[in-house]
């Protein structure tokens, strides 16, 4: 399989991460106010701290974090997490699209078509998905610029106010919930072996880019939507609906197009990560492909179920937002793999010296 560049993977992971910002679930009850700046920054600091040991252990070869040292159990945990992330993404996309401009479309059509494209992406391989992702990221940047230009007249810095109005416990839960949205780390752990070299640099691109865009979006939410922000389900969608660039009266249709594309890229990446986890641990290529297809079917089926059982999805989302699945699949297992490899390397060096 062809290798990809670290920059490409970094951009696509950032795009995937930003999708979580746009297509939040209406009942997530996210506080988009000024405190969100603090929440975003703190969640990234926490992420950075958690990545330090992994970085130290893997600075020469990031692919060790996706090795099969933790065995089949590790791979299964990662796959379960990825399937959960895929279910969450598909469900959020379905809610987002049917709550915005595709209100008449039945959920099964949305889910089926998205799954078909992801399946096609799975067959086309990681270079195709990542190259497409870079083009979609460019489209997103164009949209963001168009929205900024479109709403520039509405920006009112008066709406900015001092943060820390909430209790520390609320802040803590918000930070953990925000931190737990970084499922891209698991994808990175499994796909970094497909990066040509310097795979860890992908995170140098992904994390600052995602952080910067999220802060910019939060700034726009607060300064444009002001006091209406708390009544808005999808703030970025609202911003694009307010944008008028002459050619199109509003950009919300384009906004949804971009987020559908981002979601498909994210689910395709998840499918490829599942394929990668299977091939590295316990299955041949054919078996791994079947497993990835099965994961897509499970994800689609679960999303279809959640589309009519919203409360069940909220319970499901609570598990993901607790941060425990991400910490297990995104940090503990890769860290264990890296430590095992590190110790093994030391042992081999000692043996060679003796």
């Amino acid at each position, binding site marked *: 399989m062809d290798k990809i560049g670290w920059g*490409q993977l970094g951009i696509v992971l950032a795009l995937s991460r930003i999708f979580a910002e746009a297509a939040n679930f209406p009942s997530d009850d996210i506080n988009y106010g000024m405190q969100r700046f603090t929440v975003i920054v703190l969640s990234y600091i926490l992420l950075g701290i958690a990545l330090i040991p992994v970085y130290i252990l893997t600075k020469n070869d990031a692919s060790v974090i996706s090795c099969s040292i933790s065995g089949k159990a590790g791979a299964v945990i990662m796959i379960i997490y990825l399937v959960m992330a895929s279910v969450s993404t598909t469900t959020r996309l379905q809610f987002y699209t049917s709550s915005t401009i595709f209100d008449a479309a039945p959920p099964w*059509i949305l889910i089926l078509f998205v799954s078909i494209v992801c399946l096609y992406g799975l067959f086309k391989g990681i*270079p*195709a998905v990542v*190259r497409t992702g870079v083009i979609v990221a460019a489209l997103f940047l164009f949209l963001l610029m168009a929205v900024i230009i479109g709403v520039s007249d509405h920006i009112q810095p008066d709406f900015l106010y001092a943060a820390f109005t909430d209790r520390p416990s609320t802040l803590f839960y918000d930070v953990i919930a925000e931190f737990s949205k970084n499922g891209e780390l698991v994808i990175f752990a499994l796909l970094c072996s497909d990066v040509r070299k310097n795979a860890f640099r992908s995170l140098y691109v992904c994390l600052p880019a995602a952080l910067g865009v999220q802060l910019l979006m939060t700034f726009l939410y607060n300064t444009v939507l002001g006091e209406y922000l708390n009544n808005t389900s999808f703030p970025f969608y609202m911003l694009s609906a307010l944008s008028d660039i002459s050619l199109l009266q509003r950009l919300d249709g384009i906004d*949804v197009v971009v987020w559908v594309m981002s979601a498909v890229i994210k689910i395709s990446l998840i499918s490829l990560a599942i394929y990668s986890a299977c091939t590295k641990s316990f299955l041949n290529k054919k078996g791994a492909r079947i497993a990835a297809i099965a994961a897509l079917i499970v994800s689609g089926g679960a999303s279809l179920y959640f589309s009519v059982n919203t409360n069940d999805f909220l319970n499901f989302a609570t598990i993901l937002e607790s941060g425990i699945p991400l910490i297990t699949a995104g940090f503990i297992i890769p860290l264990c793999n890296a430590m095992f490899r590190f110790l093994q390397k030391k042992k081999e060096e000692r043996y060679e010296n003796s």
Partner: protein
Amino acid sequence: MHERNDEMEKNLEHNIVNIRSLMNNTGDLTIKNAMVGQVPVSILFCEGQINTNQMANLVFRPLNNIGNEIKLTGQQLMDMIQNQLLIAGEQKQVSDYDTLIMFVMSGFTVILADGADYGFAIGMHGFDRRSVKEPSTSINLRGSREGFVEAIRINMSMVRRRVKSARLVLKTSKAGKVSGTDICLCYIDGKADKKLVEEIEARLSELPLDMVLEGGYIQPFLEEKGDLLFSEAGTTERPDTFAAKLWEGRVGIIVDGTPFCLYLPKLFTENFQTLDDYTQKPVYTSLMRILRYVAFLAAVLLPGFYVAIANFNPELIPDSLLLNLAASIQITPYNLMTECLIVHIFYEILREAGLRMPTDLGHAVSIVGGIVIGDILVSAGLVGAPVILIVAVSAITSFIVPDLYNSIVIMRFSFILAGGMWGLFGITITGLLYLYKICSMDAYGVPFTAPVSPFSLQAMRDTFIRTDWRILSRKNPVPSDLNGVTTEERRKNG
């Protein structure tokens, strides 16, 4: 009975009988018998393929000058022809029937003598050929007016005239087991990747075709399997474009019998480049390049996008325009998707008719198509005027990128169907399928979407914009620079 690959004999009579038999007594084989130096001699050629004046001056006259006063053996006569007579530039010794027949059918004259088990093939092609004219495609404002013709040798000379360097390699071979078509592989040594040249040579040598009548016959064998929409092989009718592509590290293939030459690999962004881009000011060129990309997107997406927005999301359209659209939609009996498909199918039929029918009748088709059908469709209320406008715009814009016309038509129809049935969601899903398809393509190890994704800053100076020649002339990126692998990595990997 002799086989084609048998060696010739010393007996001229036997040789002639065998040749006639192996060529199935074909009617265009002409054999002139004579006595030269008291040796029976036969001159073989295919009627209509040789220049008779040249033959009289360069073959008959020198042989007559030898006369019959002196007595020679067949071997001595052949030695004399080879060493003492300057007959023609192209003079090759042939000793087996297969080669001899191939030369005769390629427009060579072959001299055989009794007592010699070989002959001489002398090049004096004289078949009627089209003169060099301005190419019918890829018209440019500035630059050469010469276009390739059907004769391979003339095409090779046109390339050579533009690249007078020993680094330009022209390798000739045959393709097609029955047609025996001459093909010429061209590349610039040091520019084209050696692996690329070897790979193309290997593919050409394994062609399973019996007949090769045009470059399009061999093109699928040079592309990856399953590339049904886009091509990794480019075609050009212009020798200057061909030479420029060779300098950019591409490998060219000239096929006898067609003015369209192939070059490989071709990247997606190359569809948006023309020769005029390099002769005009960079600012204007850059603007034109961007317009070409916009035109491509309009040609592919505009009808589908219009159908999707007008059907499902009219709120995106400015109010004043929306009122006009609503008025026209109300008076037509069909839905927008059907209208759009009807007009597009009409347009494609008219285009196809205009292309195939005699040129003189083309004007009649234009009148019938453009005025009668177009006008009546609207005035009869079958189709709304906005749809005609949208189709016209997308039709015109599709000609701005002629190399992608076929792909544009297929994509346009699919976007109309997707937009009509599922709105913007359908457009998005279809667009993603195409993006995955395009992004998965590799042209001989170079991603088809390079230098956009994977991104190459160096190549960007001649992608969406075209920088000044002073910058372009610094280092010309070749395909192997665009596969996302840095020079340092390539060096490490050997």
